[in-house]
């Protein structure tokens, strides 16, 4: 499974050339994507930054003016008064509480769980069709830029993953869905899937899926990552964006 992650040697070259500033165009975009989604690439970047860091100390300092600080402060204020990004509220229904409950998963079979899930969706559909219009969407692409899944976040605070034709789960493994709130931020697990079926995402640790979040899917042991961070290859990634 190397769709979303280049081979280690190529990944290291990409990290090195990104750090010395030589990547342009597609390769630079690829490196920026991996820098947000791929823990292996992040460590390669950190190692290369550390190797070259001493060169930054050789730059002759230029006195930093108070005027520059004033402009920075003005920038902070402008940032604070800018309109807040659209936030999809977290779900708080009994259904999602049940969905999140570990003991529920330990006692219920997957088939039963999915029946519950589908029933939940059916009830939701009848109850509030408008709430089912996605407000934020992420199309997840393979390393070959083939769409393989879609994440829809709804106005009522729920979010779900819908697998597409290219969605493949390696035998004996599970796929874990991660939301990455921004560059240099740790991925937050929002669900584990072991069958190519729709999955309601767990937004307990996230204030909803927001535009510009990166969604990534990694290959993990059954049940999900033992460490709380991606441990296997990242095979699908996509950037969340506002649905019009």
């Amino acid at each position, binding site marked *: 499974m190397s769709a979303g992650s280049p081979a280690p040697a190529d990944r*290291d*070259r990409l990290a*090195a*050339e990104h*750090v*010395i*500033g*030589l990547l*342009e165009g597609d390769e*630079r975009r690829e490196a920026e994507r991996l820098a947000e989604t791929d823990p292996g690439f*992040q*460590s390669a*970047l*950190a190692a290369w*930054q*550390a*190797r*070259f*860091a*001493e*060169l*930054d*100390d*050789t*730059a*002759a*300092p*230029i*006195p*930093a003016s108070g005027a*520059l*600080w004033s*402009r*920075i*402060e003005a*920038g*902070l204020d402008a*940032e604070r008064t800018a309109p807040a990004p659209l936030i999809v509220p977290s779900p708080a229904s009994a259904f999602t509480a049940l969905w999140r409950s570990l003991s529920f998963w330990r006692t219920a079979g997957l088939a039963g769980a999915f029946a519950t899930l589908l029933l939940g969706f059916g009830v939701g559909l009848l109850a509030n069709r408008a709430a089912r219009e996605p407000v934020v969407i992420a199309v997840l692409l393979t390393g070959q830029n083939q769409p393989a899944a879609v994440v829809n976040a709804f106005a009522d605070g729920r979010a779900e993953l819908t697998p597409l034709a290219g969605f493949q789960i390696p035998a004996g493994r599970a796929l874990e869905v991660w939301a990455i*709130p*921004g*560059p*240099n*931020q*740790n991925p937050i697990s929002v669900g584990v899937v072991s069958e190519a079926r729709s999955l309601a995402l767990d937004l307990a640790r996230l204030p909803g899926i927001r535009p510009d979040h990166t969604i990534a899917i990694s290959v993990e042991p059954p049940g999900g990552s033992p460490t709380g961070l991606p441990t296997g290859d990242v095979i699908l990634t996509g950037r969340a964006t506002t649905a019009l």
Partner: protein
Amino acid sequence: MQGALGKLTSPAATDLNDALRRVAQGDRAALRAVYDAEASRMLGVAARLLRRRALAEEAVHDTFVQVWQKAAGFDPARGGARAWLYAILRNRALNILRGENRTDLVEDFEPMGLEAPEEDPEAAVLRLSDTGALKRCLERLEPVRRKAVLLAYVEGLSHGELAGRLGVPLGTMKSWIRRSLIALKECMA
């Protein structure tokens, strides 16, 4: 003398870690402390890449606004605070260099694009610590290849600009860089 020495040495990494932790909580005085400690050096790094003070200030400005927004995402386990800060700065400066101000910059170049650098990149090597692995390993590279790596990192030259400056085909330059980076990694391991 001890007092003066204490002022001259850059703040310990833990101070910067601590400052970033407070920045993440919205402490503007902590951001100012980071500015006081690092902004001069950051301007120097950005000016080597961007050649112009106004652009260097823009890069430092944008970096501090990003630090303010993203300090919560800084994870000390993944690397030092200083490395994190300079990675943001270099990335921003390179975006300015390669992106929106590209055409603007070209006007500054001499007709052949061979503007003389402000200083020989070898001068940067001379200022590296004699005991550090980076200096020892850079010095083991063939001089022209070392120059290519330094011009890329320090002055932000692209593959194409390096090939032009050093008078070799683009493919040769790419291969030089690739092999030099592998050699550096092995040497510094």
